[in-house]
């Protein structure tokens, strides 16, 4: 089959590799019909993520048609499914609590050592995102082996376009969980740092959860425009002082809940010097830890901090004093995708949530290397690239 493989910094290629096979009873194989390049894929592209190996197939946002099933899979050939980026067993203590991204059994036993050393306990497996998260081949390919297919993939009713549901795989549940973690109450004012896909979905979700006002913060004009379309007020941090603006816009009280959706949109392991490189070289022209400090300082007393942004290592100058004195609550974590998929699929089918606005470019799988380059170079215009293996190359 054809698949987008990582070969090194700024070197991704569409290679011919072996077709995947059923290896475990609960596996299925899907034929990919649509897959997206995630902001977090750019960090693999830029060579910032350790434990990558040449030839690793990328992609963790994907969907497709079931073409083969293991004896314990509950899926049937021909079904259309969206696959969560987190690989979780559904049977362990954490899955029992619907904390799927904390699954004990998603990672191969040997791959659990690195995460255990770094975090105390290993996390779930992830598709196409380095060997620390399992070394699983990703979805920017014609076919994918999907483990635990009886608990992960969600079946999509016939006749629904791929583009409407593709983002159930990662960024929509991530944005939703970010808003849920902000524990939004009626009449709340919510501030969201970062208007990438996760931030934009958090804006939509916050309104659906009853927020009175949402204030979106970014510096890409196009992304701020998208936030405005969903009813958010905006702050362009290159034009305005964020703290001062927020204080005036909230009458000196501060937002009831703050969401830090800047960060790296990453799903893996970062060591601090790598984070520093990223901070210095690419992130929105700002120090990325600055967003969480700014969010904590701006948040109202007794307010809530939600942090979908990924922090892999240690953070300097975390304002613990402000955090304690103001009595804030912090909720964070990798997304428990499986928990949110059914409800969000319904919201999409009932047209309460639209995700297609995000897609700026559509390409064939063969054009994926071009897609990576474009996504990296033009963050204002390129909001989301969707790859379709069957898409006729332009």
């Amino acid at each position, binding site marked *: 089959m054809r698949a987008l493989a990582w070969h090194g910094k700024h070197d991704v290629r569409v290679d011919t590799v072996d077709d995947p096979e059923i290896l475990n009873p609960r596996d299925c194989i899907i034929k990919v019909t649509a897959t997206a390049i995630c902001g977090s894929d750019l960090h693999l592209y830029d060579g910032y993520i350790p434990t990558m190996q040449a030839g690793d197939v990328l992609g963790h946002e994907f969907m497709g048609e079931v073409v083969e099933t293991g004896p314990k899979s509950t899926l049937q050939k021909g079904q259309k499914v969206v696959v969560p980026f987190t690989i979780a067993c559904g049977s362990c203590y954490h899955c029992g609590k619907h904390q799927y991204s904390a699954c004990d059994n998603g990672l191969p036993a040997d791959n659990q050592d690195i995460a255990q050393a770094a975090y105390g306990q290993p996390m779930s497996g992830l598709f196409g995102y380095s060997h620390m998260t399992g070394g699983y*081949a990703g979805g920017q390919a014609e076919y994918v082996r999907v483990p*635990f297919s009886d608990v992960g993939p969600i079946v999509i009713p016939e006749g629904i376009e791929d583009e409407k549901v593709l983002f159930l795989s990662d960024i929509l549940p991530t944005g939703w969980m970010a808003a849920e973690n902000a524990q939004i109450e009626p009449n709340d004012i919510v501030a969201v740092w970062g208007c990438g896909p996760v931030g934009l979905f958090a804006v939509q979700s916050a309104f659906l959860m009853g927020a009175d006002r949402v204030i979106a913060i970014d510096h890409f004009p196009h992304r701020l425009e998208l936030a405005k379309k969903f009813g958010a007020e905006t702050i362009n941090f290159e034009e305005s002082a964020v703290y001062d603006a927020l204080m005036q816009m909230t009458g000196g009280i501060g937002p009831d809940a703050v969401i830090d959706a800047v960060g790296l949109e990453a799903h893996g392991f970062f060591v601090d010097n790598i984070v520093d490189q990223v901070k210095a070289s690419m992130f929105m022209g700002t120090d990325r830890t600055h967003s969480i400090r700014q969010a904590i300082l701006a948040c109202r007393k007794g307010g809530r901090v939600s942090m979908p942004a990924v922090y892999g290592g240690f953070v300097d100058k975390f304002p613990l004093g402000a955090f304690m004195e103001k009595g804030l609550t912090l909720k964070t974590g990798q997304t428990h995708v499986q928990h949110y998929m059914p409800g969000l699929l319904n919201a999409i089918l009932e047209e309460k949530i639209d995700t297609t606005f995000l897609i700026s470019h559509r390409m064939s799988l063969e054009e994926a290397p071009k897609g990576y380059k474009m996504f990296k170079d033009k963050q204002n215009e390129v909001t989301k690239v969707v790859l379709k293996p069957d898409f006729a190359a332009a």
Partner: protein
Amino acid sequence: MDDIQTDDAPLASSKRSSAVEEATETLIEAKGDSLVGRAVTINKPVSELFAYWRDFGNLATFMENVVRVEVIDTKRSHWVVKAPAGRTVEWDAIVTDEQEDSFIAWASAPGADVENSGRIDFRNAGARGTVVTATILYDPPGGGIGKVIAKMFQREPAIQARRDLRRFKQLMETGEIATAATTHAQFEKESG
């Protein structure tokens, strides 16, 4: 450091030098001076886990380095274990004590390539399932083949016990052992 344990932590996590001796008293037989302890919570009832483990022929399914375990009689089994450079080491293990749905203690018989002893405890953890604790004593051998083995054993038992318990948990909880391979050929190669 005070030589009397005053806390409730497992012996195998102790910083005290006397921990090994204390462990050997509870382990029934002392077969070595390196102590490894690992615990894992498995979301299954004690009886199911105990029964699977007590059928020693099953152990090679999830113990990465174990080539096979031949059950000789109810107390005695023969172990063939991978060593570096394509070699294997062998020993007979004898069950020295056991209590159904509670624990199994063993010790290697005289003449073992690598002397070892230990116990596996199964403790009911209510809604969480069962806590399985492995406590292993082993003797890193020296000289000749022992040097190669020592390299493996001095470095490996802690890691191996941890990984094997993870695989046991995966097999019991999910019915399979997680792999990131994509083809049978790759899977065979990786499990070598």
